[in-house]
Each structure stands twice: as structure tokens, then as C-alpha cells.
């Protein structure tokens, strides 16, 4: 796979460019705007935005089932959803939220920001980048088509064996879950390879390890987690695929199989997965808080190393999801203790953020509020996490709403709050206008209210014994009151979740009405390199690759300490920022192949589910497209370069 991006498969060096301009789809896409451009773009910024749009869409799409769950559970013995429908709905809710919302949202920020923060022109492999996105989207769409093609998966998001077997889930929903996530996972994997290479190899001169912005660091750790975790999930899914589709026996107890194998494989992936969901948000917060506290991040090295530590420790705790699975007291002991200690590096992060707030001059705009929101809400979720780590206590807590409360506090109160913060923070960089602060504050406060009202009661419900994944309950169990509150909260939360879209719309219209004023390169007076270029980011990113001399280099271009050690502004952002004219800059050309390759995979996927015959055209298309890809030079040799009269520069690329 990896060789396809290789230029050597193109014309040899020095060979003059062909004069032919073939027709139709076989010529390279040239559009720089419009739908066709979005479909064929290899620009990391456009891809980042597409990731963002897709995951926001899926947030709503995954929120609808959540609301249905809450409606069903608002009162005892409701009949809104049948058992079957309920099972599909919570499974899809969890799956969509994890795989199609939080993960791609992390990828959105990573894609948009990584090259900018390290001073690069694009990621290492732009076409693979496009491929990663499209393959994620293809997988996501395919997963959701299950609704129309015979029913959604009903195994829960961790889909334990043998309940996921064909005997217990005879529909095709689980096959969709299986195959579609395998496809989406492939995108994450290629994305990880790409982004790691980018960070390792494409940093601007002087951008040493200890000068990387914290967000970049956290994303790097995240991508390593993906790189190593995805294949484990893939294997679990392959085993399931072979069991379900080809009568394998991996989870066939009658043949001596042990169903716990699935749990081990899934959670070896699953636990790193939860950290890779939170680390990008941690990175975002570590950028936002210093910017608006107007002081550097407290304890940069500790922030970095605790992130790395979380990444490593995340690999040693998976069986805390299996405390009651019967893995034996020795394993339980080991994993319980290991799990508890993950609170240490995480605590370092939390306390360092607090120390950054300490003595700062805080500008409490929406982005900052959401970041502080993360610090508080995540901590609550983390603390309940530690209480799960007390294995004996977890035998009471596991599979109750107490767990549901925990993971919504860390996922929504952590990851999503962080992402919202990031959206408000980087919106002007990406789109050239700020989001409305007033609506933003509404957004934040309704979110905090709705969030705590929804998930706070779940702590109590869980400890009062309400199991999760319950289609309904009885009055005699005493769950009525808090469930009602949670349902009310969830609608406030839905309103809050939606309001960022409303905000975007209102802000855009207002901005247009005001004659599209430019917010300037550095609207927040922030610290990292992406603020040293114009907003919205020019297509080529940097006119001139910056040379970095310190952490927060951009900040120290603007401000320097005078002889008294007092920080003084030496120049304005406007003067310092790169003007954004990309003379002579050579950009990778758009390509059709990534999207074609990406969408050939679901064809194979449908084939695996419905009829193997369908795999034949799928594989055919895949092979052909991969070949087309590798024969296509990464640069469009025929294309004129930006404002350069003589078309051919190809020969310089040996």
C-alpha cells in the first residue's frame, strides 16, 4: 500500500513533460474551487475542514439516537422503542459518537493545524491524507446505510462475543459494524502514518522537540496510539468476520473457543482508543489557556511528558473493562493498580492548567470558557474513572449508569468541550471571521447546564443500581425521578450542541453584512506559528518557511522583554505576519485517485456482507485505482505553477 505514493513510478527524471492533455477523468483535476475541488483536493486544510464538517454532521446524527434513548427512558415502561430498536439505537449512538465524531474531530484539528504549527507546507503525503479522509467517510456512510439495508448493529459498541455471532445476531447489522469500521479504521491507520511522518520529518528549521506546540505533541502521541491500536481492532474484526461470514470458530464455544479473547483484543484497542480521543482535546486546551491567560503554559516539559506517559500507560490497563469477566484475581490486581496510576500523569496536566490560570489575566471568551469547562468537567469524569479502577467497587459499578456517567463526563465534558473550544479558537484562522461571542457564551452555559443535568443524575442512577443498555425499567426500582431529569437535560444539551451551527450561520451573515472585514492574521494575540500567516490560511500556508528559535516563537517575535524583564510589544502581528503571496510556491496537485480508491473499499465491504461476487468489481476498481494512483505523479507536470509563466519545473524534482 505504502508504495503507491512514490513518485518514482512517474516519469523518470529529466524526461520532458508530455504534450498530451488527455480527456475526461483521466486528466488531472484542476479546479481550485467548487465541488470538484473539494472532492479531489489534497490540501490538508480543506481535508481538515471536511473532517470537521463530517464529524459535526455525525454529532447531530449520533445525537438523535441519544435523544431517542432519553425519551424512551424518561419514564418507566415506555414503549417508544422496542427492545430490538433500542439495542440498535444505543449501539449506533456509541459507535457513531466514538468512531465518527470524536476520532475524526481529532483528525480535523490534526490535519488543519499540524502542518501550520510545525511550519510545513502540507502533510508528508497529501494524497494519502485525502485518501484517509475519504476512506473514513466511506466507512461512516457505509455503517449508517445499515439502517436502510436490514437494520443497524445491535451488539453494543464493544460488541462482545459470542453475542455478536451469527447465532445470536442473525441480521446483517453486526456485519456492517464490522466491515464499515474496518474500512474506517484503515483510514485512521494511513492517517496516523502520514501525520507521524509529518511531525517527525517536516518541522521547520529550528523546530526542535521541545519547541513543538503542545497540541502537536498530543496529536503525535494520539497518532502513535492509533498506529498501534487500530491493527488490534482490525484483527478482532477479522476474526468476527471470518466467524460470521465463513463459518469460522474463533468464538464458537462448542468448539472450545474462549469468548474472552474478543474482550482482550477489543480492549487492547479500546483503552488506547479512549486516550486517543481525549489527547487532542488536551492539546487544544493547552493552546487556548495560555493564549487567553496571556502567559506561557505552565510546565511545558511536564505537559509533554505526561502526555507521552498517558500514551504508554494506556497500553497497560485494558483489562479494567474486564474486572468482572472472570479473568482471575491476579490479573484484576495488576490492572486495577495500573489503572489507578494513570491518574498521575493526567493529574499533572490538570494541575498545570490550573497553574497556568494562576496569576494569569484571563480573557473569558467562549474558547477560554470551553477550555476551563474541560478542566472542570473532565476532572469529575476522571475521578469517577479512578473509582472504577478500585476493582471491588467496580464489581458494583460496571455496566451501570455510573459508568455511563463516567464516560460521558470524559468524552463530552472532556473531548467535546475541548473540541468546541478549538472550534471557537481556530474558526477565524480557517474561515476568516470570528464566531459571535454572545451566542458563544449562551452556547457554553447551556452546554454546561444541559450536560450536568443530563449526566450528573446518571452517577446517582448507577449507584442506585440502574444497569446500562436497558430498554426500560419499572417503577419499583426507583429510577423514575433522575431519569426524567436526565431526559430534560438532554434536550437542553441538544439545543446547546446545535447552537454552534446557529452561531456559525449568524456570524457569517453578520460578517458578510459588515463587508467581510478581515480579522487579521492573529486575532487572539496567540502564540504558535499558525497565527503568523494570514486568515483565512492561504492555500500555500507559509510564503517563507519560518525558522524557529524558541518555544512560542511567534509570540516572542511580537513581544520581547525589555531590560527590566518586562514584556514589551516590539511589533504588531500585522507587520510581522507573512503577507500571503505564494510566488513560486509549488503545491501538490489535486487527484481523483484517493477518493476512487477510498470508495472502492465499501464496494468490497458490501460484497463481504451481501454477495462475494460484488467483491470482484470492488477489487478490480481498487487495484486499478491504486495503479492509476501510483502512475500519476504527485505533481501535476502539466499544470502551470502559481503565477509562473514557464510551465515546467518538473525537471528539478529528481
Amino acid at each position: 500500500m505504502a508504495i503507491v505514493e512514490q513518485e518514482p513510478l512517474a516519469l523518470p527524471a529529466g524526461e520532458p513533460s508530455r504534450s498530451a492533455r488527455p480527456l475526461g477523468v483521466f486528466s488531472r483535476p484542476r479546479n481550485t474551487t467548487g465541488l470538484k475541488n473539494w472532492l479531489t483536493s489534497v490540501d490538508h486544510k480543506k481535508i481538515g475542514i471536511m473532517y470537521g464538517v463530517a464529524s459535526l454532521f455525525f454529532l447531530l446524527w449520533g445525537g438523535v439516537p441519544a435523544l431517542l434513548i432519553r425519551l424512551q427512558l424518561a419514564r418507566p415502561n415506555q414503549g417508544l422503542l422496542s427492545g430490538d430498536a433500542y439495542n440498535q439505537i444505543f449501539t449506533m449512538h456509541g459507535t457513531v459518537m466514538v468512531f465518527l465524531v470524536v476520532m475524526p474531530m481529532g483528525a480535523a484539528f490534526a490535519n488543519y493545524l499540524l502542518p501550520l504549527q510545525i511550519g510545513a507546507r502540507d502533510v508528508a503525503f497529501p494524497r494519502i491524507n485525502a485518501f484517509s479522509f475519504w476512506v473514513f467517510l466511506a466507512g461512516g456512510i457505509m455503517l449508517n446505510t445499515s439502517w436502510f439495508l436490514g437494520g443497524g448493529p445491535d451488539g453494543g459498541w464493544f460488541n462482545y462475543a459470542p453475542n455478536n455471532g451469527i447465532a445470536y445476531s442473525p441480521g446483517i447489522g453486526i456485519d456492517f459494524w464490522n466491515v464499515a469500521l474496518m474500512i474506517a479504521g484503515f483510514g485512521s491507520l494511513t492517517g496516523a502514518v502520514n501525520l507521524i511522518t509529518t511531525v517527525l520529518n517536516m518541522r521547520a528549521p529550528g523546530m526542535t522537540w521541545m519547541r513543538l506546540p503542545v497540541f502537536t505533541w498530543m496529536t503525535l502521541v494520539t497518532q502513535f496510539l492509533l498506529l498501534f491500536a487500530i491493527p488490534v481492532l482490525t484483527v478482532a474484526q477479522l476474526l468476527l468476520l471470518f466467524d460470521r461470514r465463513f463459518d469460522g470458530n474463533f468464538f464458537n464455544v462448542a468448539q472450545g473457543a474462549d469468548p474472552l479473547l474478543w474482550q482482550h483484543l477489543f480492549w487492547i484497542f479500546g483503552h488506547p482508543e479512549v486516550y486517543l480521543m481525549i489527547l487532542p482535546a488536551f492539546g487544544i486546551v493547552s493552546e487556548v489557556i495560555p493564549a487567553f491567560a496571556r502567559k506561557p503554559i505552565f510546565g511545558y516539559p511536564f505537559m509533554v511528558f505526561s502526555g507521552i506517559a498517558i500514551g504508554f500507560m494506556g497500553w497497560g490497563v485494558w483489562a479494567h473493562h474486564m474486572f468482572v469477566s472472570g479473568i482471575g484475581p491476579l490479573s484484576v490486581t495488576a490492572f486495577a493498580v495500573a489503572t489507578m496510576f494513570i491518574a498521575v500523569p493526567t493529574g499533572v496536566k490538570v494541575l498545570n492548567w490550573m497553574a497556568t490560570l494562576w496569576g494569569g489575566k484571563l480573557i473569558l471568551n467562549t474558547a477560554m470558557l470551553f477550555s476551563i469547562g474541560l478542566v472542570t468537567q473532565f476532572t469529575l469524569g476522571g475521578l469517577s474513572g479512578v473509582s472504577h479502577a478500585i476493582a471491588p467497587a467496580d464489581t458494583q459499578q460496571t455496566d451501570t449508569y455510573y459508568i455511563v456517567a463516567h464516560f460521558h463526563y470524559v468524552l463530552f465534558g472532556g473531548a467535546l468541550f475541548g473540541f468546541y473550544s478549538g472550534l471557537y479558537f481556530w474558526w477565524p484562522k480557517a474561515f476568516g471571521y470570528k464566531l459571535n461571542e454572545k451566542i458563544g457564551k449562551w452556547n457554553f452555559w447551556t452546554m454546561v447546564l444541559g450536560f450536568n443535568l443530563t449526566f450528573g443524575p446518571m452517577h446517582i442512577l448507577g449507584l442506585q443500581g440502574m444497569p446500562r443498555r436497558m430498554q426500560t425499567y419499572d417503577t419499583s426500582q426507583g429510577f423514575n425521578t433522575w431519569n426524567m431529569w436526565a431526559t430534560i437535560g438532554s434536550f437542553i444539551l441538544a439545543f446547546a450542541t446545535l447552537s454552534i451551527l446557529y452561531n456559525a450561520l449568524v456570524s457569517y451573515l453578520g460578517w458578510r453584512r459588515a463587508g467581510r472585514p478581515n480579522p487579521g492574521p492573529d486575532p487572539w494575540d496567540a502564540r504558535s506559528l499558525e497565527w503568523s500567516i494570514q486568515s483565512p490560511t492561504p492555500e500555500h500556508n507559509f510564503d517563507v518557511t519560518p525558522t524557529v528559535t524558541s518555544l512560542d516563537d511567534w509570540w516572542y517575535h511580537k513581544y520581547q522583554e525589555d531590560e527590566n524583564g518586562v514584556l514589551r510589544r516590539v511589533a504588531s502581528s500585522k507587520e510581522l505576519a507573512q503577507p500571503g503571496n505564494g510566488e513560486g510556491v509549488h503545491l501538490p496537485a489535486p487527484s481523483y485517485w484517493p477518493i476512487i480508491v477510498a470508495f472502492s473499499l465499501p464496494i468490497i465491504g458490501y460484497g463481504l456482507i451481501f454477495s462475494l461476487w460484488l467483491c470482484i468489481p470492488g477489487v478490480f476498481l481498487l487495484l486499478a485505482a491504486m495503479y492509476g494512483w501510483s502512475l500519476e505523479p504527485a505533481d501535476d507536470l502539466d499544470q502551470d505553477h502559481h503565477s509562473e509563466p514557464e510551465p515546467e519545473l518538473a525537471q528539478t524534482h529528481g
Partner: protein
Amino acid sequence: MSTESMAVGDHSTTHDDDHEHHPTAKTYWLTFLALVILTALEVAWSYLGLSGVALVLPLLIMMVIKFAIVAGVFMHLYTDLNILNGHWFTVAFGIAIGLAVSVYVVVFAAFQFNI
């Protein structure tokens, strides 16, 4: 991972193949010979009718040596090691192997002992 050496690396450029000192053909042939001998030894060992640790341990050791030889010589990890910062290949691969071995050994232990 000293910050120092990385900082130096930051200013380097790609080393062309001419600058890399890949092994000579002779080294490759000798490596191959070693691999063949090890394989033969492995097979022979498996025919001794041993069992338990006596069977498994030597086989595993030989396996690891073969693994290391292929990775080191054929995949140039040994030579790439010498290049400034080239240990990133080894780091990436090494983390992977370390993670895989430890994680899967733990899984296996959990099943084996079930305690």
C-alpha cells in the same frame, strides 16, 4: 532521547544512498548462510523429541536471532543506526515490537493462568 541530539538532527538533510554505507554483497551472502544454518538447527532441534522448555526456549532464541539478523542486515537497521537520528526507524519498530510482545504475553498469561 536527549533534546540535544535532536536539535542537531533538525538541521540535517537526507542522506543519499551514496553516503549510506550499506553492507557489501558478501555480507548479504554470509547473512543468508547464517539464516540457513539457523533454520537447519531449528528444524534439527525440533526433531530431537524434546518437549517443554527444552524444546521451546532454544527455538525461541534462534527465532529471535533470525528475526534480528533479517531486520538488522537485510532491512539495514544496523547500518541506519549509525546515521544521525536514524534510530527513529528502530524506535518506531522497537516500540511496536515492545508493545506487541508485552501486550500479547500478558493476554496469554491471563488465559494460561486464569487467576
